[in-house]
């Protein structure tokens, strides 16, 4: 599988840290989307950031500079053929 078959997520110990990074990425014009954390990434409910893998390096710099706490970066395969399911 190529990288286009995956989605990349940053997980956080709490939503405050996630929102801090989300705000900073927006300020710097870097694309990210807040999403519910997939179960395959963590058994806890809550937000994570869906990011572009090409921005990962610069994001790591921002995380270090601003001392944003993250839990981990997770790469998950995109599920093919998702069919509507009531949540």
């Amino acid at each position, binding site marked *: 599988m190529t990288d286009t078959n995956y989605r990349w997520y940053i*997980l*956080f*110990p*709490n*939503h405050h840290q996630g*929102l801090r990074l*989300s705000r900073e990425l*927006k300020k710097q014009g870097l694309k990210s*989307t*807040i*999403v*519910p*954390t*997939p*179960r395959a990434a*963590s058994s*806890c*409910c*809550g*937000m*994570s950031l*869906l990011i572009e893998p090409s921005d990962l390096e610069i994001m790591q710099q921002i995380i270090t500079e601003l001392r944003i706490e993250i*839990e981990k970066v997770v790469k998950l395969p995109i*599920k093919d053929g*998702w*069919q*509507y*399911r*009531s*949540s």
Partner: protein
Amino acid sequence: MADYRQMWSDLGMDLDKHDLLCEALPDAFQGVYLSQENRPQGMDFFNFVVSEIHGVRPAELMEHQKAGGKVFGTFCVYVPDEVIFAAGGIATGLCGGSQFWVSGGEKVLPANTCPLIKASVGARLDKTCPFFRIADMYVGETTCDGKKKAWEILSAEVPVHVIDVPQMKRKKDIEAFQGEILDFIKIVEDFTGNKITPEALAKSIKLINNKRKALQRLYAARKAAPVPISGKDALLVTQIAFYDDPARCAEMTNILCNELEERIQAKEGVFPADALRILVTGTPLAIPNWKLHHIVETAGATVVVEESCTGTRYFEQLVDESGSTIEEQVKALAERYMKTNCACFTPNPGRIDDIIRLADEYKVDGVIDVSLQFCNLYSTESYLVKQALADRGIPVMHIETDYSEQDYEQLRTRVEAFLEILRK
């Protein structure tokens, strides 16, 4: 990751069962929402609320309770939130939009009850909704028979106050609703221990009006072609408006609207300018019920307006802010709320007028009239809706459905056939 399990445990929730819901939501959200192209950045706040839906807001409500405040769980757009906020309380919506909760409701309700009621009762009895666990009082109303009986079942769990919504719109009915609001003020004052002053009520009337104005602005943006936001995203904003802090919800909706208005200027949209435009009318689509919108918008058309309680009925009318006494303010509240055109009224020509007006304002190609299964009122009224729209040459299809995915492919086939007819 944020771990809310201690909080849910303190609330007496069934953690194992609730965990099944937590497991399903991310996939459903990604499947429905992340499959869209070019979503507005301003949707990120609403993505956040969904991601933390049983965490952040419930924690805020519990903080409010720790500080001595009361939380009122509400089900319907006829409950005057203004009264609750004027007494220092918080009004919040309650769970009721997922198939996950339906089987819990069916343990005590007849199977031929609408899924909204079954899901609501199930969410409470199965202990899988933090909002149902947190609310100190539920505020019901008399907009259908199923709900009237459901309040009696729920009142064994939590104090319930029922507002008697008149079933006609004569002058004496509007006066009767004024009386209901006055009674509600007394109930809320006694329950919170706070007196509702004209100043406090004036402030909360403005607060809720501001939320309505922000939602009006959002919907006004959907009149543009190409449409700058999908129907699924707009629906999500309205669904969240029932739960979120009203001032924050207005602020975040207005930020989203700034972006949408820039898109309109730049003629930037999420669907081609010639995409078919659909008006959805009927019963409410409570979060996370995104089924119909997903079907329509993955078939190449876009939902541009909802004439429903999770749409225009929620915010179209404002409360007159000029009243300076409780009597004047209550009169203004009653007049505003009684302008909402629910199928519980007889006759109810105002709703048909609204559908025709909105079809024109939003330049729709067709109307989908959707009723939740076993909603006798809306299903019966669909006959009159169909007749009135046919008289004006507006294509319409009626759908009766529930929350499950059982009829998903059947519905998709029917919707695609309807869109095909509109294209000819």
